[in-house]
């Protein structure tokens, strides 16, 4: 089973990489860009686990390791 996890800087937390990309986009003439947030896209492949359990397990993986809840939010998408 494929699982997609999107980790992004929490609202209100400074994102220096996003700010740098925003500045660069503006200087390239993309004045319509109001904000850039840069996060991570993590793809997992799970084996030998039923779908009901899997989401809870992935949530625990995010809380314990894959995201830092102090500075990051995450969103999980189960399946392809």
């Amino acid at each position: 089973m494929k699982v997609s996890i999107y980790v992004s800087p929490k609202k209100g937390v400074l994102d220096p990489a996003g700010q740098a990309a925003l500045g660069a986009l503006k200087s390239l003439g993309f004045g319509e860009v109001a904000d850039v947030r840069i996060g991570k896209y993590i793809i997992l492949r799970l084996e030998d686990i039923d779908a009901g359990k899997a989401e809870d397990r992935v949530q625990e993986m995010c809380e314990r390791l894959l995201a830092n809840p102090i500075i990051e939010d995450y969103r999980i998408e189960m399946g392809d």
Partner: protein
Amino acid sequence: MRFGVVVFPGSNCEMDCHHVIDKVLREDVDYVWHQQTDVSAYDCLVLPGGFSYGDYLRCGAIARFSPVMEAVADFAAEGGLVIGICNGFQILLEAGLLPGAMLRNTSLSFICRFSSVRVENADTPWTNAARQGQVLRVPIAHGEGNYTADEATLAALAEEGRIILRYCGEDGEVTAAANPNGSVDNIAGICGEGFNVFGLMPHPERASEEILGSTDGLLIWESVMAHYRSRG
């Protein structure tokens, strides 16, 4: 006094710490491999700088699950002295032994140079040999030293005197211009609730000998030794 310098795969300041403790402070010191689970032989644990586990995912995020970290947490919970320097500070944050988190430096650059930091609380195990407000010249070397925490945490840190070091100018003034990395309130070092756990981005082990341009880092080591001896 016996120090243990914890070595993770990717640590790179452990030899500097070992050298200073052994040759300059003339205290007992061992390396403690990250697989070790017994740290009861030590009076102070040092988590050195480096790039543990390649700093993959987030700095310190993987190192915190090393077998030794459970022993470090137990040691700290019992009042044991733990200092995390640079990557060691990041590991203590990820492990929840200190509050808050690190973001990329606002400049996005890795910064390696001397910094000035002001002692904000000289009544701690780590700073008792310094004067309140003393300015220390100690090098920093990091890409992710931009400390952040939620407002409640910051208020508690300030109120309880747990902000130990702040980036400042050479005159000791804490200004935005003196902040190398964007760290909130110019924070360079903090303590946990019992003051026995200390995390800081500057490297005291790189400022403990004249030949390296500063001996201000010695104040940190001498403080913890004095604290240990006063405890008996």
